[in-house]
């Protein structure tokens, strides 16, 4: 499974919606329950899933799914 698919599953888990489809451009405005609480759950789940640690500057700039995937891939490549 690639990063994109794994991220999509995290979204489905956190929002408990098996049919949820996310695109790179998907952002908080597109998903009703995507509030600051969900944002923390998403980021912590990603840290666990990919065994990475997001630093403060990274955390602050994650506005949509594409941002998240690219920061994860950058971390995994490093």
């Amino acid at each position, binding site marked *: 499974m690639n990063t994109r698919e794994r991220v999509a599953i995290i979204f489905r888990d956190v929002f*408990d919606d098996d049919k949820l489809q996310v695109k790179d451009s998907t952002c908080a405005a597109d998903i009703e329950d995507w509030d600051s609480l969900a944002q923390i*759950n998403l980021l912590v789940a990603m840290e*666990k899933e990919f065994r990475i640690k997001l630093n403060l500057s990274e955390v602050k700039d994650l506005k949509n799914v594409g941002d998240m995937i690219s920061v994860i891939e950058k971390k995994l490549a490093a």
Partner: protein
Amino acid sequence: MSISQTSDDLLLRKAKKLREELIQRPNLVAKKIAILGGSTTDQLVQVLELFLLEAGIKPTFYQSNYNRYFEDVIDDDSALYQFQPEIVYLHTTIRNIRSFPTLNDKPDQVKTLVALEMAPLQAVWKKLGEKLKASVIQNNFDLPPFRPLGNLEFSLSEGKVNYVTELNREIAIWARTHSNFYVQDIGYLSAAYGLEQWHDLNHWYAYKYAMSVNALPKLARNLSSIISSILGKSKKCLVLDLDNTLWGGIIGDDGAGGISLGPETPLGEAYRDFQSYCRSLKARGILLAVCSKNEEIAAKSGFNHPDSVLQLDDFAAFKANWEPKPDNLVQIAQELNIGLDSLVFVDDSRFEREMVRKQLPQVSVPEIGEEVTSYVRILEEAKFFESVSISAEDQKRAQLYILERERESAKMLFSDYNEYLKSLEMRAEIRPFSATYLDRITQLINKTNQFNLTTVRLTGGEVSASLTDPNQVTLYGRLADKFGDHGLISVVAGNIEKQSLKVSLWLMSCRVLKRGMELAMFNALLMEARKRGLKHIQGHYLPTAKNAMVAKFYEELGFRLESRSDNGGTIWGYDIQTAKTPAQHFISVNQEHSNPKENPKEEKTRRSA
């Protein structure tokens, strides 16, 4: 999917789905819980809800705004007080300590600083105690993430580690001297988790979590076990397999000489220590039972091993046979008069564990594995036996079950049951609630399931409030006999409305069934009602899954059925004026003599109804 099969790492991620499933469970008890945090608590609440639902509690939460707990508590008109929580959790951490000592502060100055630091917290605790009847859970302080003074932080009086220790000592003292106030020891929790992992600075700066979000499942599980304990939902009995659980090897094959137990081998030592752990649970009131596939004689011979810490009389029930284990567990629960949901079953065999899980989902079956060195850790992680207080009754409980066996054998000698009851030389103390027994009364109210007419649960605060309420009639009953002391085993309480006493609580420990104690309580209640000039007693029976044994209780006492409610409940009335003589029993009530043989004025009157 269930919580026990979901790893801590996935709990938050799967929280919504888990919640949806758990909330479908039958018989959830609703509770209002306020979470007052000095840091973010949203995720904590999310995970805590899962553990509480699993424990049969359906919480409604109030959360203070970020670090506004002090204002919430001090303001009389705050939303907190409109919410009227039954449980308040105060979650402050090292991040909320306002000032630390500075280098070269003298011990006196540090002492003053401790007092200054504690003052607002103490004000909060005091105010909560005055305004609410809620149980308050305060966590102590975790150790700091950094030590600029290194190891001196511990030894210098102005050191941060020393300072935190001093603050925590103040919290402990408050807990020892105030009722309804319980400490969650996150000092220990964070150490067990690992301080380096506990303090996640990214999570602090980014989300304002005082500890790593990953540590929240551990924190929440621990908190949930304290809440369960306050509500009387802790487990009561540890049921143990024998071979490769309490000793290494197969007793039926190897004999007492061949099993691994004792200091000669590393494995034997580990089994001995596990036995010691079980014994320490027994000492604080957890019942022990054996459930083993073995010949009984062989099974018992294991406890003759010179290094066996556990002895046969440590067990309240002993089942060694070839019947299926679920059948034996049902029998153990019956013998001990406790529910299946009070049992924890420990067996190294995966087969047996699965069978019990499938057939008796009410029984807790930890995934104990087959490594004796892991048994204690797995048991402790599950927090089955968390207890907010240890009463004198708890410590005597195991002994009581052994005395009960002696009574049973004494019963054989009598053909007439009344003769047997007389021979027990029973003495009771029946009086209004008093502060001395507050903890035990609260415990009994929250634990008793079978002989319980209404199954109303009360917090210590609510019980305490009844002490001074002139409209409440309260009675507790203690019972002793020639074999020993049962302790405080019955509670009756009600409110006076006009000239009627509305009985809201009537319960008794099943340990003393069929002794006539319920009749002695009834006589005392009648006496109290007469003293207050009341004309009528109204009793209420509310059926639950467990209290069918008292469905006809009021009828048997001579009450008349007044009405039925939709939920299957019945309301009964008793006219005090037309009541004749008191009910007959063989218990001498409120006589100070220690030996009733020298006391001929035993209460022996004819039963009227």
